């Protein structure tokens, strides 16, 4: 904590950031008590785009809930639909053909890279560098085009179905994806040249926003935030789902606990995702992309079901309580950034306001996903 924040004078003032503010990206508000340039207390205020998706899950059939999912986390929408597909398939005992699982992994990893690319551009923009955003969006645009060709939408994907995916990929998609893998493998070293070694960037990121493994555990933080503090935890490895066990990939972990470590984790993750996509394209089995005989009306047995996936921002899990009818009795959605942001108030105390905003950016927030 700063000397100022600890001083006896205690001349504090209140500062309101947001809900409409460029640094908070979507509509998030902070009630901040400041001591000069230092934060005494920064309380996040949520709910500005709360849409009550959980209630919507209760009053429509299982299949009717599909479009809601991608509208929560619009950057990691494939992971959200993946979690829901897994949940309902688990509850109903639906087997998914292998080719469909491979396609799911390919699309999910492309989506993860897309999300990280946007985060990369926005993070550097938050710190004051505008150019990398343009480079990142250029690369990201390639992914959006690829995903649009196979899923039909650019952000709010509804590509998965219970028992598979609705559309097979074309040869164009395969050649396009292979070209993209080459392209991004060249681009990421360029990003490192452009940004990672930059003195100003390092000044703003290194030793800022230190998060100990202990605080992360108390708040239930997951994803790159956890892996930036030396904890090797990734649902894809620790609780494997889909066909992830068949691929050879690493979980990047950095021990520094600071914003820069979280930055490096995500940069490395993009390369690992490329490896997964490449292997999936090489090994892609032939066969159907939809399970046969999936009932039109699903009535899972009574009880509750849980399914977790690794979204771009951490563990995304869903709990469905079924009462044996064609609608869920309760649908709980656990969004990763909700837990990741909840530690902000404790962690940002005593920080410079400018550092706190860079720190917040390193948590990679998507507000519609927190508010649900």
């Amino acid at each position: 904590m700063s000397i100022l924040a600890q001083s006896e004078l205690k001349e504090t003032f209140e500062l309101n950031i947001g809900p409409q503010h460029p640094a908070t990206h979507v509509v998030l508000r902070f009630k901040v008590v400041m001591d000069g340039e230092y934060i005494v207390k920064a309380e996040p205020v949520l709910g500005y785009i709360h849409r009550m998706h959980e209630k919507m899950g209760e009053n429509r059939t299982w299949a009717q809930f599909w479009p809601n999912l991608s509208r929560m986390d619009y950057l990691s929408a494939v992971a959200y639909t993946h979690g829901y597909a897994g949940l309902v398939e688990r509850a109903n005992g639906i087997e998914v053909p292998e080719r469909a699982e491979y396609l799911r992994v390919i699309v999910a990893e492309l989506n993860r890279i897309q999300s990280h690319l946007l985060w990369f551009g926005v993070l550097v923009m938050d710190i004051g560098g505008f150019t990398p955003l343009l480079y990142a969006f250029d690369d990201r645009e390639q992914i959006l085009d690829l995903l649009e060709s196979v899923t039909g939408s650019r952000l709010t994907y509804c590509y998965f179905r219970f028992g598979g995916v609705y559309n097979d990929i074309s040869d164009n998609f395969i050649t396009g994806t292979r070209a993209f893998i080459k392209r991004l493998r060249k681009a990421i070293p360029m990003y490192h040249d452009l940004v990672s070694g930059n003195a100003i960037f390092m000044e703003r990121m290194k030793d800022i926003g230190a998060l100990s493994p202990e605080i992360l555990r108390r708040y239930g933080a997951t994803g790159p935030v956890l892996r930036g503090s030396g904890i090797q935890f990734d649902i894809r490895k620790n609780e494997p789902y889909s066909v992830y066990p068949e691929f050879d990939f690493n979980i990047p972990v950095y021990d520094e606990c600071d914003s820069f470590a979280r930055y490096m984790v995500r940069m490395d993750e993009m390369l690992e995702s490329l490896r997964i996509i490449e292997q999936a394209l090489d090994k892609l089995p032939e066969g159907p992309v939809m399970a046969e005989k999936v009932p039109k009306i699903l009535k899972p047995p009574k009880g509750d079901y849980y399914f977790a996936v690794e979204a771009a921002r951490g563990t995304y899990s869903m709990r469905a309580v079924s009462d044996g009818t064609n609608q869920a009795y309760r649908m709980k959605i656990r969004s990763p950034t909700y837990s990741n942001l909840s530690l902000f108030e404790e962690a940002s105390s005593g920080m410079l306001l400018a550092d706190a905003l860079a720190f917040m950016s390193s948590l990679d927030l998507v507000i519609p996903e927190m508010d649900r």
Partner: protein
Amino acid sequence: MDRAKIKQELEALAAEGLPEEAPQEVEAAEEGEGEAKAKKKEEEKPRQNGLIETDYNARGFHMDVQVNPDQVFRAAEIIYNEGLTLEAVTGVDWIADKQFEVIYDYSYTGGELLRVVVRARVDRDTPDIPTISEVFSGANWHERETWDLLGINFVGHPQLERFLLPDDADFHPLRKDFTP
């Protein structure tokens, strides 16, 4: 993380809250046989406190513990001491039973996978349950959200105010008798 220890301590805790005449042996035998069958039977009559080892592939978690509402704090402490983390707190409105169910999802992020579910049922008219935010700081937001949407009162919570809903809301939308 010591899986056997967690199981043993939670089992002991759940047994403490059992009424004296509970016929435990019969149920234990059923659980061993077919998990789905045992589950189905329990659903028909209210479930007894106790620990069930669930089939991970069918359910998505390993241990399912039901305790009394006043024991959730102790359960959280047991789980915290073994290095697990809190993933979510949620509630279910069982309006037919005139009860709310509060569900705590714990998972282990340090290696070998373990998911523990702790549940407690509170009366729908007096939905009071102690807060666990002193053990898991992350529970603060989850409990606040559960109060906001379901109206379950977490006794001792530092800031039980509207969270996702606007400040002037006077309803709890996830209650089954809620009409917009």
